[in-house]
């Protein structure tokens, strides 16, 4: 292990390390803590210039209550879920198929198709902006959740294919050959043999895509407008327009918007990190 395990060092070093940890963490997360602090402050504190001090009163319930009952935030949150979840399902479904095809079969175009997906995934998505927007418009899906979902599925398929294909590549090929010898059709091999084995990858990928899509801002503002279909990342800007300079409200709103992926991360930590390092690319 590198660096040398701290347990093997002097008691002084151990103590120093252990006390440095929380300090460093506090420092690292200071911006977030600040937001959390803001979000429970009363408005009066800001007018009074008490930005960083102890809140003069605890207004957490009030502020968050406002977010939930006096703004479009709940609608935006709901939209986010309604965009994110179908995207995750769609992208994962498509890419487990493409990943399977590219990971298992040997055919001439294999590597080139694979590279196409990978390259597409790395493209600066701004180049897609105008045509995709026009396409969505002409499909009548502009400013609908479905329009956003379709695009996200397509774009994420690039990344997911990279991920899935590499994962399937790492599966023992004998498993597939064994099934073939047993007379299992290719589609059944996919369904009964490969898919169950991909569970960890599916979980990791789902978690990853969930955060990617949840946090997407660019496409949200390119393809949707207004509380009917915009996700929370875009919603937060109009939320902020509504509460411009009301820092306590903006903080509360931000925290609410950030919460689902954070919760996801904590619940599915193992998968999440596996996903990052397995797929290793955004």
């Amino acid at each position: 292990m590198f660096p040398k395990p701290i347990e093997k060092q002097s008691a002084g070093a151990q103590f120093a390390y252990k006390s440095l940890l929380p300090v460093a963490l506090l420092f690292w997360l200071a911006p977030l803590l600040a937001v959390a602090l803001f979000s429970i402050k009363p408005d009066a504190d800001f007018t009074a210039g008490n930005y960083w001090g102890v809140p003069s009163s605890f207004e957490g319930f009030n502020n968050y209550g406002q977010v939930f009952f006096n703004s479009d935030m709940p609608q935006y949150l709901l939209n986010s879920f309604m965009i994110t979840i179908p995207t995750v399902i769609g992208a994962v479904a498509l890419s487990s198929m493409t990943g399977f095809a590219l990971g298992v079969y040997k055919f001439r175009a294999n590597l080139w198709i694979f590279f196409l997906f990978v390259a597409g995934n790395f493209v600066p998505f701004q180049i897609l902006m105008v045509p995709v927007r026009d396409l969505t418009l002409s499909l009548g899906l502009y400013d609908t959740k479905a329009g956003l979902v379709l695009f996200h599925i397509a774009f994420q398929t690039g990344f997911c294919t990279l991920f899935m294909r590499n994962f399937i590549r790492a599966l023992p090929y004998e498993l597939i050959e064994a099934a073939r010898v047993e007379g299992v059709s290719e589609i059944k091999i996919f369904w009964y043999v490969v898919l169950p084995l991909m569970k960890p990858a599916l979980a990791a990928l789902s978690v990853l895509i969930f955060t990617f899509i949840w946090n997407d801002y660019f496409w949200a503002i390119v393809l949707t407008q207004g509380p009917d279909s915009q996700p929370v990342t875009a919603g937060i800007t109009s939320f902020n327009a509504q509460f411009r300079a009301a820092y306590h409200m903006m903080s509360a709103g931000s925290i609410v918007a950030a919460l689902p992926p954070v919760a996801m991360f904590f619940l599915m930590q193992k998968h999440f990190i596996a996903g990052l390092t397995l797929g290793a690319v955004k």
Partner: protein
Amino acid sequence: ELTGDLTIFLDTSNPAPRATMEAMIGRFQEKHPDLNIETTVIDREAYKTQIRNFLTADAPDVATWYAANRMRPYVEAGLFEDVSDLYAEPAIAEGLASTKGALTIDDKQWGVAYTYYQWGVYYRKDIFAELGLSEPMTWDEEKANCAKIVESGRACYTIGTKYLWTAGGWFDYLNMRTNGFDFHMDLAAGKVAWTDDRVKQTFMNWKELIDMGGFIADHQTYSWQEALPFMVKGEAAAYLMGNFAVAPLREAGLTDDQLDFYQFVKINPDVELSEDAPTDTFHIPANAKNKEAAREFLRFATSPEEQTIINNGKNLGQLPVNAGSSVDDDKFLQQGFQMLSTNSTGGVAQFWDRDAPAEMAKVSMEGFQEFMVKPDNLDKILSKLERARERIYK
């Protein structure tokens, strides 16, 4: 006797205006119970980009928008309905005469106004009193006042230029006062070079205020709302703003004893006074399906009664467009109405970003912002704007 569907798209997304508009539509519905009205309210900022899509793809029957140059692209693309026929109706011809110009392109009218508001200098009466100042009448008084305010450790004017347009307001006034309304309009129309000495003169006037520390520091990082607290806390004495600033200032705790208003002072005594009064409008998209009902709605919305209701202090808190309606007795509205109807002989401008084409507006307001931060870059800025002008107005 109206039937069928009527879809209305609104950009009045803030809570108060939203309620006002919905209430008005409710009243319209009562009059036409058989009409199936569908209202969609879209975030104001989002609306500005979304309008392109719905006008072409899935047009409503009525849509809000802004007058003057701001509606030009849609008119030219044939996306707005010609409503000159409405203006031919005597009631409207009389009532809406004052805003007709702002809605006219190629001698045709493309929509109706439903509200407008004045711009002007909102100031802290109590601070003026404390420093022994009075409302200035001339540019020199303005500067003298400002010098005193700066001396007292305050800034004269608060402003937040992060979103650029607030600087456009200053430019509007300085340029209209320096060079007059017509010159201003020519500039907006790209007929005058930015490197023209007259334009420079406007900036030199502006520079005087900047150099004496008239504006708050770091304004380029604030939005207009974030700039409000400086005035509320007394760190700045005045705010050149539209009348909509009054409500948040009052909410923040300023009473009418502390808050007052004056018209932007004369600079060049030879030019007539002219004002910014942005007009918000209703249009009928060319692709609308129920144009008959839409016209009826436009008549309704601009009728003297409705104008009185929706613009009163409890609702929009702005000025009615119909000559036949009455202005709320809120002191700012009264003053504003007074100013616009009697003391704005030079003309009424819509606002810089509505009078100038979008691209030019964007580039120029960025220039204004830069100028306010770095006044010494003026020549560089102006030559950049001139390059932009040559490109944009081709």
